């Protein structure tokens, strides 16, 4: 919260592993990524270390332990998102192949690191949960879509509470992959800037505990008001130019909450700082909201957390509501005059009552979440 309130950016020139790329990254300092407990040594990888770091913050372990006691371990679901799980581990193993046979080193543990569910397995064990569990992997919308799955599973009676969230960690595939698409900025990314020229990749993890709402919740309780999901049906790696899929996701989120665009104060945009994403999202948001909602992308501060972006930016919306501010757009200098939404450059000292968080991913996978807070 303090970093957001002071407008600080965590982006640094890329010095990750052996990557030789002229770009900036939002890298979590290695000294913070402690080893996993000995019993979980097989799951040792950067992604699970990041997850472990996030689980240890803000009394989250205690909150989950409380829910586990209250509902029972089998009645607490786990819905996590990641795009690349422990892929870095596989990249490193490919450098250590046995010369004559090409075999991967014996220490390589596919299930505990590379498999997309490795994150789910690790967190399930860390939290002692035995309810329904799944890892959703829809690229950059992954850890937003987990909210939709969790809500449906609770409504269908499969669990009483749910841990949602996700983790995505830096790896060479995403760094060199986005470089191959010419989508990496050489500077710290500048969402909605007239000179924006691509993304800065970040890494992170975040978690939240969802419970069924009661008629009278204590003041200050965060509410998930609505979820909207859609597909672009356009292209694998570039958004629909008119933002048609994004608009459908936002519209569905509003409909599921029985709200209209006028009810939303703040939108945390997907705002990756590529030319095409920001232009398409601007069209979609402007079509639906005009200039009634304040908008910003916080990726200039965090970088693009890919599969962890949804949970991270949902938590940013929650921080904005409880910290009574709207976050501006770190690194954005000059707003692109061709973009029309009401874009916030510097922090505003005004608490949003209801906030939307947008997450859009490769494969045209879109998700919008609506958050509120009881008064």
């Amino acid at each position: 919260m303090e970093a957001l309130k002071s407008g600080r950016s965590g982006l640094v020139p890329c010095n990750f592993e052996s990557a030789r790329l002229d770009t900036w990254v939002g890298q979590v300092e290695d000294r913070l990524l402690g080893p996993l407990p000995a019993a979980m040594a097989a799951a040792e990888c950067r992604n699970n270390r990041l997850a472990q770091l996030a689980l240890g913050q803000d009394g989250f372990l205690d909150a989950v332990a409380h829910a586990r006691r209250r509902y029972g371990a089998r009645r607490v679901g786990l819905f996590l998102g990641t795009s690349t799980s422990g892929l870095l581990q596989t990249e490193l193993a490919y450098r250590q192949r046995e010369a004559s046979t090409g075999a991967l080193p014996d220490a390589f543990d596919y299930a505990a690191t590379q498999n997309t569910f490795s994150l789910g397995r690790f967190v399930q064990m860390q939290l002692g949960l035995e309810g329904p569990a799944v890892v959703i992997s829809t690229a950059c919308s992954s850890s937003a879509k987990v909210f939709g799955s969790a809500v449906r599973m609770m409504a269908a009676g499969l669990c009483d509470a749910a841990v949602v969230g996700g983790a995505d960690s830096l790896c060479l595939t995403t760094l060199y992959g986005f470089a191959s698409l010419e989508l990496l900025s050489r500077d710290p990314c500048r969402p909605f800037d007239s000179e924006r020229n691509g993304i800065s990749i970040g890494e992170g993890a975040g978690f939240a505990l969802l419970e069924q709402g009661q008629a009278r919740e204590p003041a200050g309780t965060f509410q998930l008001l609505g979820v909207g999901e859609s597909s672009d049906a356009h292209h694998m790696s570039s958004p629909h130019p008119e933002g048609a899929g994004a608009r459908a996701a936002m519209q569905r989120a509003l409909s599921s909450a029985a709200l209209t665009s006028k009810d939303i104060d703040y939108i945390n945009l997907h705002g990756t700082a590529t030319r095409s994403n920001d232009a398409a999202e601007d069209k979609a948001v402007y079509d639906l909201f005009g200039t009634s909602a304040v908008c910003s992308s916080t990726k200039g501060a965090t970088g693009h957390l890919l599969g962890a972006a949804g949970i991270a930016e949902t938590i940013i919306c929650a921080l904005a509501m409880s910290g009574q501010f709207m976050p501006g757009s770190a690194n954005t200098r000059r707003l692109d005059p061709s973009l029309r939404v009401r874009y916030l450059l510097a922090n505003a000292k005004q608490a949003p009552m209801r906030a939307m968080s947008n997450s859009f991913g490769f494969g045209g996978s879109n998700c919008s979440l609506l958050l509120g807070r009881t008064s």
Partner: protein
Amino acid sequence: MQVFVEGVGLRGVGLNGWIASRSILTGAAPYVPAELVLPPPDVLPPAERRRTGLPIKLALNVGLEALSGSERSSDTIASVFTSSGADGQVLHQICESLAGAERLVSPTRFHNSVHNAPAGYWSIALRSRAPSTSLCCFEYSFAAGLLEACAYCVTEAEAILLVSYDVPYPEPLNAARPIAGSVGAALLLAPLATSASFARLDVQTAPGGCSPTRMRDPALETLRSGNPTGRALPLLGALAGPIAATVVLEYLCGATLTVATLPC
């Protein structure tokens, strides 16, 4: 959770479509493991078709078969794609080039490496903006996909297509994660009975204690136990038969999914 089956898709080694495979699944015809036969995905524009590998083609194929008899408009049906390993060939090629000096990653390969690549091509092929999710639960990916699809179906009161697919990795990943054969399976599920529904499913989670339903044929059992999508075969076998049946699917933490099927 109660849902109704309106369509099934199945393709795998020695399993050439749902219609052709029904008698094999019930044991009326012998199962002969044979090379996977996969027609080209005509539904994709030629440029996109060239960019797709086996897992995407397999997922599209079974998804389309499940929709083939349906009168529902295909561009409004929500979907769940589930797979343990997604596209292993793409993963292998990217890791191989990153281990080399040049580190040249092809842009197409990179965007095909996402777990939701089949869902992306599906929405492009069918021009569908309907909600779609892509998930993984390692060995239990089919069971997790079935739960996700049923929960969507009953809470949103809308039809949904479940597509499950798993294809072996190339070496050296195959040695670290062997997957038996290639299998794709799909179910078109609806919240209410219609003239198109041919079976009712009652899906429950159970804390465990029951052993999973196995395939009687040893070669089919190898496919069931060795391929995460193969875990769907006992359920498809029950749907292929004329009588009510109960199928037990393995799930996380020793739990199971019990699926009661009732022809209608």
